[in-house]
């Protein structure tokens, strides 16, 4: 069992109340930061910690904070991105539901570091019950003088608001989130200007994931250098992984970055092996947007090194033989799962969630979904596979926001690694469309 930073007290009964939370050392970081540190010192600690954005892109949080423009007389904002809607990701939801005060503590400490006097938690519309939990916790914090005017007698003011989204995946993209928070249609903005210069209400804004913000109190309490000792290389600290799929113990696990993938799947401490002792077929290691990897490539990189649960190791090999840690949604497929069907399912999701602002994504996601639907239902042609590769390439990199890339990568990678399975679907439509039919050729070849 590694060190637990985020989930240490998560199962303590009553931790959602301020009283119990404080008994377990809660809000120490607020006192420490506000009373003994300057905002810049907090930013410096976060920089030293090497904490990276946990929302998916993995951009160093301290760097992001130091980019924040600080013009005189203009308010600054901290926005917490709790619009967690990537298929397979459910870590923030569990975290906020169980331990709302930990997020609020992180928000106060981080807002102090950034000099923000108004902060927002933008929460996914489907999680309305968590919004109530958070609002209750915020009310408690206000009553205890941890929020509002003159926090702990220091002269620092902070108002914290929770705003629900309408339930659109695109509003998890930071600029679309800001548009939505301003009450507009959730279309991503053109960048530059970046939110650090012109964000919410045209003011400098930092947008961070729930997990990133919730890691800040520990860093303030125990110093950034201490945090940097956890993990491997540039992947420091711990990460919440939402494990799902055909495994014995699905759920949210906090791991120290650097756990070998093989250990994560087969150890009883984590996933506990493949369900019913079946064979592993493929893994999507970071949420539906990242490339899928077949069993052999997820255990070892193309150069034969052991793959670890870190940002660098999972992306080793680029898009040819690697993937990404992404948001940490670890989806496992056993031998009975159909990759074509799964790819179609992902494509359907992105088709449904594209905002429709820029043409490659608006038209391309629908096109890919229709072609995959055709293949899955036994009406594909041989040239469809190349067509999909070409369409994915036309979308990738040519869109305003990363949703286009996120839609293109799963399709392109599924074809790259499971081309035979697609071909089998096209060549044998009757067999392939029979209930429960799965292509097993690749697995047989791998075991021989």
């Amino acid at each position, binding site marked *: 069992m590694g060190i637990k930073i985020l989930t240490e007290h998560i199962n303590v009964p009553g931790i959602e109340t301020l009283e119990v939370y404080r008994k377990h050392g809660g809000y120490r970081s607020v006192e420490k930061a506000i009373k003994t540190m300057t905002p810049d010192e907090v930013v410096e600690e976060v920089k030293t910690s090497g904490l990276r954005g946990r929302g998916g892109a993995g951009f160093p949080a301290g760097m992001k904070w130091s980019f924040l423009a600080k013009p005189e007389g203009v308010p600054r904002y901290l926005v917490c991105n709790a619009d967690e809607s990537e298929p397979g990701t459910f870590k923030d939801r569990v975290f906020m539901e169980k331990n709302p005060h930990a997020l609020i503590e992180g928000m106060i400490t981080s807002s102090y570091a950034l000099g923000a006097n108004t902060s927002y938690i933008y929460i996914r519309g489907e999680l309305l019950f968590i919004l109530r939990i958070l609002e209750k916790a915020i009310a408690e914090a206000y009553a205890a003088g941890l929020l509002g005017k003159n926090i702990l007698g220091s002269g620092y003011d902070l108002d914290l608001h929770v705003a629900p989204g309408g339930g*659109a995946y*695109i509003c998890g993209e930071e600029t679309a989130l800001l548009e939505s928070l301003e009450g507009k*249609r959730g279309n991503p903005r*053109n960048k530059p200007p970046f939110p650090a210069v012109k964000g919410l209400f045209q003011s400098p804004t930092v947008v961070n994931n729930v997990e990133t913000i919730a890691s800040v109190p520990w860093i303030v309490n125990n110093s950034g250098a201490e945090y940097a000792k956890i993990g491997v290389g540039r992947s420091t600290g711990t990460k919440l992984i939402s494990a799902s799929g055909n495994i014995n113990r699905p759920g949210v696990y906090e791991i120290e970055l650097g756990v070998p993938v093989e250990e994560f799947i087969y150890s009883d401490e984590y996933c506990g092996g493949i369900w019913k002792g079946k064979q592993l077929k493929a893994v999507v290691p970071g949420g539906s947007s990242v490339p899928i990897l077949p069993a052999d490539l997820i255990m070892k990189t193309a150069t034969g090194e052991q793959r670890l649960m870190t940002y660098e190791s999972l992306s080793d090999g680029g898009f040819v033989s690697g993937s990404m840690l992404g948001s940490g949604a670890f989806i496992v497929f056993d031998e009975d799962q159909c990759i074509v069907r799964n790819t179609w399912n992902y494509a359907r999701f992105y*088709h*449904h*969630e*594209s*905002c*429709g*602002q*820029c*043409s*490659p994504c*608006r*038209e*391309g*996601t*629908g*096109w890919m979904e*229709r072609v995959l639907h055709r293949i899955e239902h036994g009406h594909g042609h041989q040239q469809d596979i*190349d*067509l999909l*590769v*070409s369409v994915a*390439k*036309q979308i990738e*990199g*040519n*869109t*305003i926001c990363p949703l286009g890339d996120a839609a293109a990568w799963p399709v392109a990678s599924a074809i790259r690694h499971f081309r035979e399975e697609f071909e089998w679907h096209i060549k044998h439509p009757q067999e392939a469309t029979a209930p429960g039919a799965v292509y097993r050729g690749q697995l047989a070849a791998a075991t021989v």
Partner: protein
Amino acid sequence: MAKITFDGIEVEVEDGTTILQAARKIGGDVVPPAMCFYTPLKGSGGKCRVCLVKVTQGSARDPRPMPKLVASCITPVQDGMVVENTTNEEVLNARKGIVEMLLINHPLDCPVCDQAGECDLQNLSYEHGVSATRYEEPRRTFNKVDLGPYIQLHMTRCILCYRCVYTADQITEKRVHGVLGRGDAAEIGTYIENVIDNDFSGNVIDVCPVGALTDKTWRFKNRVWFTKPLNAHRDCPTCSGKVTLWSRGDAVLRVTARKDEYAEVEEFICNTCRFDKKEMSDWTIEGPRHIDSGSVISANHYELPVVNVPIVPNLPKSTVKKMPTE
């Protein structure tokens, strides 16, 4: 001032100018096409992605290339920037891909479309499109929306450039239409049946790059290339009154604002001028209008002799390029 190199041509422009505007300063064949960007409309651009260019050198200070293709209409120039448009294979292939995307759900009903002959999408696909389609599925359709007595909306032709939304926001007092829905189901509409009715509403017709918004008073009257464009003006209390009349014989068939070579209006005009003044005697005629925007309109009347016009004159190189194979 910033000096940039665009397709090997050096040009000096003001700081803060976009790459597209710098290219337009050079003019000619190197200018990237633009379907959604519209100079008079603030905030437009960045959506259609056909103006993508490759920045091979970010600036004199930081010579690294930009990792992705950038939308030239919204990317400001930096001193010492090197940009490639028609000289870069990657750009031309990406553009070809995007034109294909724009066309897969377009009805291609040019033979019955009033915009044909002065349509940006037509010009774009003529220059950058491919002649065959790889799209087999049924094309997307929409329910009809009635926008009142003057403006005809054909949502199936729309490419969602958002120009008409910006126009209504910035030119008129109140916007009653907008983009509803998302993804490929996004459409221009008024949500609950509403008439677009104000003095300047007709300008949405002029800014529309395709035939999605057309003039009901001109509907099916004639083809654009049979009508003669004339510069004309009248004393108008609400607008400048400077317009282009599209006439055939003595009949004024259509009135539009005056557009430059990039199909951008010089001055927005009011609805009275556009829809109600359809008599020659309402106007002071200044003379023939020169139409630049890559069309056959002027050619028929003023520019070239009508005989011996090559049907496909000097096809640009980019039209013969193949689609990317991988």
